[in-house]
């Protein structure tokens, strides 16, 4: 029983990072219709930045978290401005291809500078006991940190003027611009939020994993699986989908096979898309 419980907790922790990455992806897709495939690679950049700031720079972990989030928010705005904005109004596949270009740039840049895998020490290096299970404090930081950021994002979207503008844009872009919402500013803001969220996930996850230039590629695919399952542009869908996928994956690793764990997640997507070509919930047409 305690084995099962600890697997579920690991699943929730896996799910936490999926939710944080998928939330940004679904925001961007819902509001701007961009399949931001390089999102996972910005997550990777966030993790490496943590290494630079914390391990090389010797800065406190929590301060590093804020630095990484701020830096990646700026990077997200730059990506939107330089890569995606010129492609607005073009077929969706064009921005997807541009994202592949960005993936190559980021992955070979990081891999060219530091080809070896790196690891980041855990800021609180101890374990806790809970109902007969033992786990690292860092896992709890991921779980509760994710909840904190998800609630914060929800509050921002629901309670502030800017947040409502983002939601309005995701519901009806033309209508939003008609009532005076600046589309360019909102795009930049969405990218800043989404990328900062990914950076937060990366900083919290980094002490539990090895850093490698390709670490973002399977993550982004899983985030896409979640977004497709949960419905494009649906934040609720991304949250539920992310936690469910995380828990299912942890259980599949524990009870079925760890070598084929990715087959499992991507198999779900293939099955869902085969049955419903536009995703599970919202029947939005892709262009």
């Amino acid at each position, binding site marked *: 029983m305690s084995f099962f419980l600890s697997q579920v907790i690991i699943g929730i922790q896996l799910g936490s990072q999926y939710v944080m990455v998928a939330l940004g992806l679904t925001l961007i897709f819902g509001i701007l219709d961009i399949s931001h495939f390089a999102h996972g690679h910005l997550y990777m950049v966030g993790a490496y930045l943590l290494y630079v700031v914390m391990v090389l720079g010797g800065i406190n972990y929590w301060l590093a978290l804020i630095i990484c989030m701020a830096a990646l928010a700026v990077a997200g705005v730059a990506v939107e401005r330089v890569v995606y904005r010129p492609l607005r109004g073009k077929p969706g596949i064009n921005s997807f291809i541009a994202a592949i270009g960005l993936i190559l740039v980021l992955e070979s840049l990081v891999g060219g500078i530091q080809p070896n895998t790196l690891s980041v020490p855990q800021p609180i290096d101890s374990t806790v006991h809970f109902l007969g299970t033992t786990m690292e404090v860092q896992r709890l930081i991921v779980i509760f940190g994710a909840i904190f950021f998800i609630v914060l994002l929800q509050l921002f979207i629901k309670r502030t003027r800017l947040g409502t503008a983002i939601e309005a844009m995701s519901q009806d872009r033309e209508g939003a611009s008609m009532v005076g919402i600046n589309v360019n500013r909102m795009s930049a803001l969405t990218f800043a939020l989404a990328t900062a969220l990914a950076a937060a996930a990366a900083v919290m996850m980094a002490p539990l994993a090895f850093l490698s230039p390709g670490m973002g590629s399977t993550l982004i695919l899983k985030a896409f*699986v979640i977004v497709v399952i949960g419905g494009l542009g649906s934040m609720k869908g991304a949250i539920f989908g992310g936690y469910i996928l995380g828990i299912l994956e942890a259980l599949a690793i524990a009870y079925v096979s760890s*070598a084929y764990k990715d087959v499992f997640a991507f198999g779900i997507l*293939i099955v869902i898309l085969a049955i419903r070509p536009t995703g599970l919930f919202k029947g939005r047409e892709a262009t």
Partner: protein
Amino acid sequence: MKKYAKIGLYLLVLAAAIALPLLLNMSRKGKNHISILTLGMVWAIAALSLNLILGYTGQASLAHGAFMGIGAYCFAILFERVGINFWLAVPITCLVTALIGFLVGLPSLRTKGPYFAIFTLCFNVIVLVVFFNWTWLSGGVQGQAITLPSYLSQRWVRYYVVLFFLILVMLIERQIVKSLAGPSLIAVRSNENLAEAVGIRTFREKLIAFTASCFLVGLAGVFFAMEQQHLSPEATSYLASFYILIYLLIGGVATLGGPVVGAVGLYWLLSRFEKSLGDFRYLIFGLILIFVIIYFPMGVVGGIKKLWEWAKERWGGKEVPSDTLAYRGPDEEVRGVSSD
């Protein structure tokens, strides 16, 4: 006039392609270049196959790396383990790849755009994971070696074999695009809903294009196996899908020469700078891809075509292509009246 110039250009390139190994075979370093060019042509076949689905139906398949790897492994297993004759294994491999493509296309082609790209990419990742873990199939870490028949042991022989098939693939693709299927395929690309409304069965067209595309990429897989003579599970990597896409886009999608120019040119450049730039060359690669998709979505060959037509209109005087002539009609009429 323009038509003859085009044929002349093709013949010139063909003559150069035939003569090149004779020059390169003289030096030791040149022999390596033959190998690089051969692999470049293999990628060109793969890019031409993707052209059939992306260029003429607008759907970007990110599973072509997997299909190429499947083709390569299928060929290696048939030829090396089962012991089937080399030239018999080639068509069987293509048919097997086409069959798998058909089965994948059946569910995936109901999706569109980014969904289709993600669907096919997920398929590719699954294939890669399966090849990595199923050692009986892929030979695992040691991989699968291929011992070629003795007449194929010379580099220049393999070069001519691949060159022959590349030309064959180009001719086939030209025929497909020209024949009845062609215009309706392009109609599917430019406006799928409209194409459906005027009675083109878009799903059927796309499925045929996808299956044919997988047939051709299986052929690319065969020659990949032949030139490498050793396969590892990485042969099915989705990175190959990305590269095929990049070769095609930078060369020029929906053109016949574009995929060949893109694949041979870029592959040659990439291996040229392998030592000096290392992994950084993919950085340049990515930057070029972003630049091309934003400013030249038609690629190098498409861009040259556009420039050529623009220059003709600017300086060519009478020699305007027939399709722009129709547009100019009324203007010339007015001029005619005023001069009289």
